[in-house]
């Protein structure tokens, strides 16, 4: 079992496992950047997706690792340089103004996905929220 992290939005928590086998550099940098407490916004190009800015600690990750375009529900992905970390609650694909682009997988929710993703889905109607990301206690 890999290292685990906890997402929390409006008191609803979900546990996710880092995708260390797929993205060793990015997941290591993400782990070092925890805890994160920041604004969570709804995406405007990538579909049923929320995103946050994980902070300057991820700036050193300049390359993609095993890149993907589709963002599966409950999967956290990140752009190079840590500019954005995104999680889909439904149909998601990383896009911006000029089209589709690649991301690196960081983590996948393994506990309490359904209630947590329901909170993200409400953002389209309710607007931005605050997200906390912490290391799971072992």
């Amino acid at each position, binding site marked *: 079992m890999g290292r685990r992290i906890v997402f929390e939005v409006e008191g609803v928590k979900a546990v996710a496992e880092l995708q260390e086998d797929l993205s060793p550099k990015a997941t290591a940098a993400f782990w070092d950047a925890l805890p994160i407490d920041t604004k969570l916004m*709804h995406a405007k190009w990538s*579909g049923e997706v929320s995103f946050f800015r994980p902070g300057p600690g991820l700036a050193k990750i300049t390359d993609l690792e095993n890149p993907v375009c589709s963002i599966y529900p409950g999967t956290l992905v990140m752009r190079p340089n840590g500019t954005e970390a995104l999680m889909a609650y439904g*149909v998601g694909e990383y*896009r911006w*103004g000029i089209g589709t682009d690649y991301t690196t997988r960081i983590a996948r929710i393994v506990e309490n996905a359904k209630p947590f993703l329901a909170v993200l889905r409400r953002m*389209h*109607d309710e*607007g931005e929220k605050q997200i906390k990301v912490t290391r799971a206690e072992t």
Partner: protein
Amino acid sequence: MKQITIEVEGVAVTAKLNDEVAPKVVGLVWRSLPLTAPLRHARWSGSAAYLSAPELRDPALAPENRVSFPRPGTLCLLASEGEIMFAYGGECQARTRAGNVWVSHFGEIEGDTTRFFALLAETQSKGRKTMTIRSVEG
């Protein structure tokens, strides 16, 4: 020339409808007025908000005066979904989860749009609003 008023949270703008280049689309919109419906931020199309109403849905209606990159202040209908799209600035392209789509450019907002555009943009951070569209009797 047909005109409408569009109001969100007490801020109203006037728009002229392009009967000559989009007669069927203007007819569909005109018959739907007055219309009060939810306004949400685009999830796939960038810097735009959209009003969604079943009265505006007509999957058989082919695009008229078609565009893909709406300018701020233009009124565009995606008849297949029953959505009017309002680009407010920055980058915007009409898209769905399946990719780029054509929308019917059927009107233009006139006058100062500063406060109106700010409310459209705010749907990303603050969530859904309510929009009302009325015909201007002339």
